[in-house]
C-alpha cells in the first residue's frame, strides 16, 4: 500500500514537472516573440509537403511563398516590418500537417499562418488554425469538402473551386449545335477530393446536356499501372475523355491511351498539362490537350506583370500555377493586414483580419477575389489548350489567345 502511494506521488510529481516544463516552453516561446513584436519581423508559419506524394507542387508553393516574402521585404515590408517565413515539411502526411501547425502557433509563436498544398492537407491544417482563432488563407484546397467543414476562418486564394474548373468548357459545349456536341464521354479520376471534384463538376454538366457517360473510373492515388484503365476507355471509343488528375497519373494515363491508339475528339486533364514538365514528358503528342487553369503569366491583372518579372528574375523561369497561388495567398493576407493594421496571434487581431476579408475584394495576380461565407472564391478557371506546341488560353472567348481546336489532332 505504501509503495503504491509512493509511486502515485512520484507520478504526480513527474506529471506536474512535465506540465510546468511544457508551459514554460510555450510561454517562453510566445513571450520571446512578444518582446520583439513591435520592431521585429512578422513571423509567418507554413507547413508544406516538401517530400512525399505532393512534393512536386509543394515545392512550387514554397517557391511562390519565398518569392512573395522577398518581394515584400524589398518593398518596405508589411506595416513597415519585414516578413519572415518558417516553413516545415509535413511529408505529404495529414497527421504531420496538423502537428506542424500546432507547433508553429503554439511553440514558435508565429504571427500569421499560410495554408499548405492539397485538399487532404488543407482540411486538418485549417482545423488547427480554427481552434486557435487564426486566419487561414490557403493556396490549394479547391475541393468542395474543404468548404463544407464549417470553417469560419478559411479563404481559398484562387479564382474558382474544383467543381467550377471546367465551367467555361461546359458552357462552350452547350452553346454548340446538337450535331457538334460530343455524344459520349469517358471519365477517369484519382480518388482525391480535388482531382475528382474537377472531373465530376464537368461530368454533372455534361450529363445534364444529355451526353452519355460510358466510362467512370476512380483509381487510388498509389496506382502505378494505367494500362487497364486506358483499355476500358479505349474500348468505349468515347468522343471525349476527361481526367481528374494530378501530375504523374495524368502523364501515365495519356501515354497508356496513346499506346492503345485511342483517338478521342477531345481530351481534357486537370493539373498536369499546365505544368512545365508536361511537354517534356509527353513529347510532341500534346496538341489539342485541354486543361483548366487558375493562372497564366500572360494575364493582364495589374499586379501580375510585376509578379512575373520579379519571379522570373529570381528563379530564371516564369511562375506556374502553384507559385502564383502561393503569391496570391500572400497578397490576400497582406491586403487584410494592411487594411486592419495588425499582424499578431492575438485572437482579436485574427478575427479582424477574417472579418475584413469577408467583406472586401482583393486585387491579386489571378484577378480580383471575393469569397462566400464558406471561403469559396467567386470565379471560374480559364481553359487552356496546346495549340501549335504551346499552351494557350482558348476559353472564355474574351480572354482567348488562340481558337479552341474542337477536333483534337491524333496523338
Amino acid at each position, binding site marked *: 500500500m505504501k509503495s503504491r502511494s509512493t509511486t502515485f506521488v512520484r507520478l504526480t510529481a513527474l506529471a506536474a514537472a512535465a506540465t510546468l516544463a511544457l508551459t514554460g516552453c510555450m510561454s517562453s516561446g510566445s513571450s520571446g516573440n512578444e518582446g520583439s513584436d513591435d520592431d521585429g519581423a512578422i513571423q509567418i508559419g507554413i507547413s508544406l509537403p516538401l517530400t512525399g506524394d505532393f512534393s*512536386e507542387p509543394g515545392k512550387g508553393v514554397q517557391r511562390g511563398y519565398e518569392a512573395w516574402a522577398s518581394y515584400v521585404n524589398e518593398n518596405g515590408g508589411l506595416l513597415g516590418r519585414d516578413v519572415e517565413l518558417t516553413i516545415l515539411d509535413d511529408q505529404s502526411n495529414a497527421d504531420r500537417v496538423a502537428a506542424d501547425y500546432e507547433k508553429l502557433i503554439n511553440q514558435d509563436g508565429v504571427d500569421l499562418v499560410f495554408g499548405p498544398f492539397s485538399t487532404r492537407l488543407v482540411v486538418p491544417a485549417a482545423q488547427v488554425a480554427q481552434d486557435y482563432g487564426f486566419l487561414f488563407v490557403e493556396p490549394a484546397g479547391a475541393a468542395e469538402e474543404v468548404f463544407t467543414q464549417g470553417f469560419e476562418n478559411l479563404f481559398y486564394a484562387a479564382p474558382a473551386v474544383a467543381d467550377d474548373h471546367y465551367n467555361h468548357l461546359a458552357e462552350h459545349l452547350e452553346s454548340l449545335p446538337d450535331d457538334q456536341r460530343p455524344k459520349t464521354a469517358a471519365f477517369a479520376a484519382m480518388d482525391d477530393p480535388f482531382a475528382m471534384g474537377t472531373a465530376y463538376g464537368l461530368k454533372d454538366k455534361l450529363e445534364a446536356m444529355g451526353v452519355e457517360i460510358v466510362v467512370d473510373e476512380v483509381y487510388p492515388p498509389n496506382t502505378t499501372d494505367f*494500362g487497364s484503365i486506358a483499355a476500358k476507355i479505349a*474500348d468505349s471509343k468515347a468522343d471525349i475523355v476527361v481526367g481528374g488528375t494530378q501530375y504523374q497519373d495524368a502523364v501515365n494515363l495519356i501515354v497508356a491511351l496513346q499506346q492503345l491508339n485511342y483517338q478521342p475528339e477531345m481530351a481534357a486533364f486537370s493539373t498536369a498539362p499546365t505544368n512545365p514538365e508536361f511537354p517534356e514528358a509527353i513529347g510532341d503528342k500534346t496538341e489539342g490537350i485541354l486543361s483548366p487553369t487558375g493562372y497564366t503569366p500572360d494575364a493582364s491583372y495589374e499586379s501580375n506583370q510585376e509578379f512575373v518579372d520579379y519571379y522570373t528574375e529570381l528563379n530564371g523561369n516564369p511562375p506556374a500555377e502553384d507559385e502564383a497561388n502561393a503569391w496570391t495567398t500572400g497578397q490576400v493576407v497582406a491586403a487584410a493586414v494592411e487594411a486592419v493594421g495588425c499582424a499578431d496571434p492575438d485572437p482579436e487581431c485574427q478575427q479582424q483580419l477574417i472579418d475584413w476579408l469577408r467583406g472586401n475584394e482583393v486585387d491579386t495576380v489571378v484577378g480580383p477575389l471575393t469569397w462566400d461565407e464558406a471561403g469559396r472564391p467567386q470565379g471560374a478557371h480559364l481553359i487552356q489548350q496546346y495549340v501549335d506546341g504551346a499552351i494557350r488560353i482558348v476559353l472564355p472567348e474574351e480572354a482567348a489567345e488562340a481558337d479552341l481546336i474542337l477536333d483534337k489532332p491524333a496523338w
Partner: protein
Amino acid sequence: MSLLLQSIVLGVLLGGLYALLAAGLTLYFGVMRVVMIAHSAFLILAAYLAWYFTTSTGLDPLLSLVVTVPLFFGIGVLMQRLLLSRLRPATLTMMSVLLTFSIALVIEGMLGFVFTGTQRRIRLDYGAASFEVFGANVAVVKLIAFALAAVSLLGLYVLLKKTQFGQALRATIQHPEAARLVGINTDRVAGYGFGLGLATAAIGGTALALDSTIYPSLHWHWIGPLMAIIVVGGLGSIPGAAIAALVLGLGQSLLQIPLGTTWAQTFFYAALFLTLMVRPQGFFGGRLAQRF
C-alpha cells in the same frame, strides 16, 4: 471481346514486369532470410540513373544497364558483407527489416536531394508506339520490359541451376553448415547472392523507367505488391515468384473490367491473406527456400 483480349495482353505484360521486380526480393530471403524493404528504393534509384543517363547523353536508357548492373551487383555484395552479415542470426529477419527500411529512406532522401522531387519521365521516340495483334494493342515499351524480365529470369534460373556458383548458392541456402563443411565459402557466396538480387533491381528499375513517371517516394507504392508476390509465390522460389507475378498481374488486369481499379488492386492483398491462411509457405514454392 476485344477488351478481354486487350486486358489479357496487358495483364501478361504487367505480370512479367512484376516478376522481374520481385525476383530480387525472393532471392534475398532465400539466401539469408533478409527482408529487403529497400529493394523497391533501389528499383527507383536504377530508374533515376536510367533517366539521368538518357537525358545527359541522349542515348537509349537500356544502354545504362552496362553501368548499373555491375554497379548494383557491387553495392549488393558490399551491403551484405558490411551491414547485413553483422546482424545477429537469431534476430536477422526482424533487424534486416529495420536496417533496409532505413536504407530505403536514405535512398529516397538522396534522390530528392540530387534530382529534386520533380516527377521525371524518360521521353522515348517509341514511348507511345504499339502494334496490333488480333485486335489487341501491344505497346513496344511494355514488350521490351517483358522481354527484359524473361531474359533476366531465365538467366538467373540457368545460373542457379547449371553453374558451380549456383550450386554453391543453393547449398548455402539449403544447409549453410553442410555447405561450409564441403568447402564452400558461404559468406562470399551469400554476398554474391545478395549482389545478384540487387543486379535484378538495376534491370527492373530500368524496365520500369521505360513506361513510368518516376519520383523519389514512388518506391513505397511498389514494396507492398512486391512483398505480396513473393509470399504468394513462396519465399525463395524464383519460378514461384514468376508464376505468382503473372497470375496476380493477369488477375489485376482482368478484375479491373468488372470491379474497377480500387478493388482490382486489393486483389493482391486478398491473395496475400489467403496464402497466409491456407498455405503459409506460398502456393508455388515447396518447403521454404529449398528450390529455384
